């Protein structure tokens, strides 16, 4: 007999994560935010923990992968707003990000540095931390944070994040303002055995243009650390937005990111998710195409080694007519690593003239690697063009043979073939600095292979 979930003990309530903690944490906050957190917690308690019986969690068993009971609340990590005083790993990452319109640096879930070009500030661009925005820009948070884009009702982790977020990034771009250079966010995790919750909110007003590159990284972590991100991106009429997530956490991290993008009329809203690190990495990305002429390019790149587990769960919702989306996720898997890709294109009844594509390609580099791919389509309009494809295969022996015949060693040839395979994704994202950085990260990983 199925049990009645309402009478069951709420799942995922621990000594660290509980109602009292939510109340204590939001104690000094304004009333509206207290209510939001308290409501999110109620939703969290009512929502059962996802199990592999759920289609969307079929291949990622949280019982085995995540131990919520073992997580503590983080200490506040003191970090002076001083480049030279930062941990080495963080400094190296920031070093590569010098060319930017603005920077955000964070450590263990708290932002400690923000800068933004002077003339952009004058044009009304807002770049701040969500914690500071509670005082400085409450109206923006009230309207957009965990409301229509990613409300707590979206799922268990979304509700948990909305209850406990400690900080994050707020980026607001006024009508018609265009940023030539990207905003670079670099976040470092130094504590181990803790739960970190962060939010990113990007609002691009009509006709504006902005790119945000969000990098999170750490050394290897001794005990399991939960890193939870919630990302909400809104591109209004005619806006152009690029969101790039670069995940380079160390082993021991359980990375969980929920992302939803809303693309209004004639807007372009592109995303790139690069998953390189963490022991387990789960990304839920939902792209909503809400206005005619909206377009989303969705790119993804992953490289697994050791026993890494990647799970990318994407969806493309074509709600309005004349919208387009194009998804390309590619990954290479070595050692005993494993990847799951589950994608769905949903064309709603009004989504006539939709143009939607979805491709997932996997390269297995070892006998013990595994790739599961579930590219789905649900089409409820007739005048559409949709296609999807998925492949799983090994290294192309002919390419390798050719390169070796030109004098390369086997290892060099293999690296080159893998680079070429993954490079297709990067070639579709002409964003200065990011391509180089990702290329370097992949090469670093390949050298360890």
């Amino acid at each position, binding site marked *: 007999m199925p049990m009645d979930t309402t009478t069951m003990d709420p799942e995922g309530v621990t000594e660290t994560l509980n109602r009292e903690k939510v109340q204590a944490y939001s104690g000094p906050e304004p009333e509206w935010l207290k209510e939001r957190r308290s409501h999110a917690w109620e939703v969290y308690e009512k929502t059962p923990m996802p199990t592999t019986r759920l289609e969307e969690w079929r291949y990622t068993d949280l019982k085995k992968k995540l131990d919520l009971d073992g997580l503590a609340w983080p200490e506040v990590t003191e970090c002076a707003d001083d480049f030279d005083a930062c941990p080495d790993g963080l400094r190296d990452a920031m070093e590569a990000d010098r060319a930017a319109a603005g920077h955000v640096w964070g450590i263990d879930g708290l932002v400690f540095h923000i800068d933004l070009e002077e003339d952009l500030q004058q044009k009304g661009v807002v770049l701040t931390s969500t914690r500071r925005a509670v005082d400085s820009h409450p109206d923006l948070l009230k309207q957009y944070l965990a409301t229509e884009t990613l409300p707590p009702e979206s799922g268990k982790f979304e509700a948990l994040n909305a209850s406990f977020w400690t900080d994050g990034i707020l980026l607001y771009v006024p009508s018609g303002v265009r940023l030539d250079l990207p905003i670079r966010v670099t976040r470092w995790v130094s504590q181990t055995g803790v739960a970190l919750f962060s939010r990113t909110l990007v609002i691009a007003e009509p006709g504006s243009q902005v790119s945000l590159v969000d990098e999170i990284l750490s050394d290897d972590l001794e005990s399991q650390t939960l890193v939870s991100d919630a990302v909400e991106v809104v591109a209004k009429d005619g806006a152009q937005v690029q969101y790039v997530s670069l995940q380079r956490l160390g082993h021991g991290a359980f990375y969980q990111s929920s992302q939803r993008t809303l693309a209004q009329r004639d807007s372009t809203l592109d995303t790139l998710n690069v998953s390189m690190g963490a022991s387990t990495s789960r990304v839920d990305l939902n792209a909503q195409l809400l206005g005619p002429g909206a377009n989303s390019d969705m790119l993804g790149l992953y490289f697994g080694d050791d026993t890494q587990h990647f799970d990318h769960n994407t969806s493309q919702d074509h709600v309005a007519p004349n919208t387009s989306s194009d998804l390309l996720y590619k990954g290479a898997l070595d050692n005993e690593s494993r990847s799951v890709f589950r994608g769905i294109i949903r064309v709603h009844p009004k989504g006539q003239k939709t143009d939607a594509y979805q491709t997932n390609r996997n390269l*297995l580099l070892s006998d013990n690697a595994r790739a*599961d791919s579930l590219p789905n389509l649900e089409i409820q309009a007739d005048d559409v063009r949709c296609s999807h494809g*998925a492949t*799983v295969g090994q290294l192309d022996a002919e390419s390798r043979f050719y390169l070796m015949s030109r004098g390369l060693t086997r290892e060099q040839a293999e690296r080159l073939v893998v680079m070429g395979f993954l490079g297709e994704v990067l070639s579709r994202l002409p964003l200065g600095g990011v391509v180089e950085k990702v290329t370097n990260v992949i090469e670093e990983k390949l050298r360890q292979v």
Partner: protein
Amino acid sequence: MPENETLQDLGLDEYKYGFVDEEKHVFRTQPGLTEEVVRQISAQKEEPEWMLEFRLKALDIYNSKPMPTWGGDLSSLNRVLDDIYYYVRPQDKMEHDWDDVPENIKTTFERLGIPEAEQKILAGVGAQYESEMVYHSLKQEWEEKGVIFDSIEEGLKNHPELFRQYFGTVVPSEDNKFSAMNSAVWSGGSFVYIPKGVELETPLQAYFRVNQERMGQFERTLIIADEGSHAHYIEGCTAPVYSTESFHSGVIEIVVHQNARFRYTTIQNWSNNMYNLVTQRAMVHENASMEWLDGNLGSKLTMKYPSCFLVGEGAHGEILSIAYAGNGQHHDTGGKVVHAAPRTTSSIVSKSISRGTGRSSYRGLCKVYEGAKHAKSNVECDALLINDTSRTDTYPYIEIDERDANVGHEATVSKVGEEQLFYLMSRGMSEEEAMALIVRGFIEPIAKELPLEYAVELNRLIDLEMEGSVG
């Protein structure tokens, strides 16, 4: 079809197999599924004790499994399942001579063109009416070569060892809720054995007809293709149109031994009040080849995924699936290939057409186990949407545990191209003719694999379904 013949000229403007015969039966169980019903079926068939135990165990498994929550809408199925007759015996014994078949049943099958087809193109014919096979015959030349083509009940009676060796091994009762149900109440179906090295030049055919209102048909077929043999089996299904719903749940088990080739063709054209939930699976051994050709035109809801378990090195599996979902119909169909041995290859080609409020879903699995080196698999799905109320879905599952494997999946969804329509109409065709031509072109890769008579029939059905679809 001659050029420029319109759809009306064909005179096929309704489901032509929807006629009803007078209900005549010599025995039937009470509606609903109970242990008593299972015992009665077993007693009616004078079965050995082990089969009764097999059935009762399967009933327990059926009762313990929850209703699937995926696939089609099964919300009203529980009501249907409480309401239907699980066993209806139309006559006392099965006949081998067409002349001995009772007049009313004979007329039904004659209207469906069965004896005629037998004369022309078939090596053997079986016909099932309600719960029992009423007729089975095999041409003498094949009988002499040791081919067995019998009702499943006669298989159990006359070849007990062969039967018991294979029965329930390809599709165990535990496999899913409906294979458990079938295992509990199975009745009718074919038992086929093709001896070593025998190549059947013409197909065997089984024909399934449900006439009784509120009736469940649970045929069970067991086919063994011994080493190096080669055969083709065709099944066809129809039922009258009633306002109440009927239910059909078959289990087909096929064992294809080393170097053998077997092809199984289904032309499913149940009336639109039928739930059709079928488990079809083949165990394919070394260098053997299995082909499923699955045509789904009728029924209210079909959930059916013919499967190839490639367990011997070099085994090959092929699934060609075509679905045509008209108003109110949902076909949740596709195929499964499981690669469990090295150098196994497979291909799935699925074509679906949705018209009116019809919905067709492709659901498929391609699984490569570790050690199945050099396995290759390719899946292609094409969906055609005719109206803005039509719906199509694609749910492929790809699970790869082996590096030295190559697996691909491609799917496209499109509307009947305005350019194609315009071109054909500029050559003097009406919009309807042009539409029918495009749809026929779309399914052609599958239709051409069918024996000629069936290809013609499929095309006529498509024409019939296409009528009035424009505008």
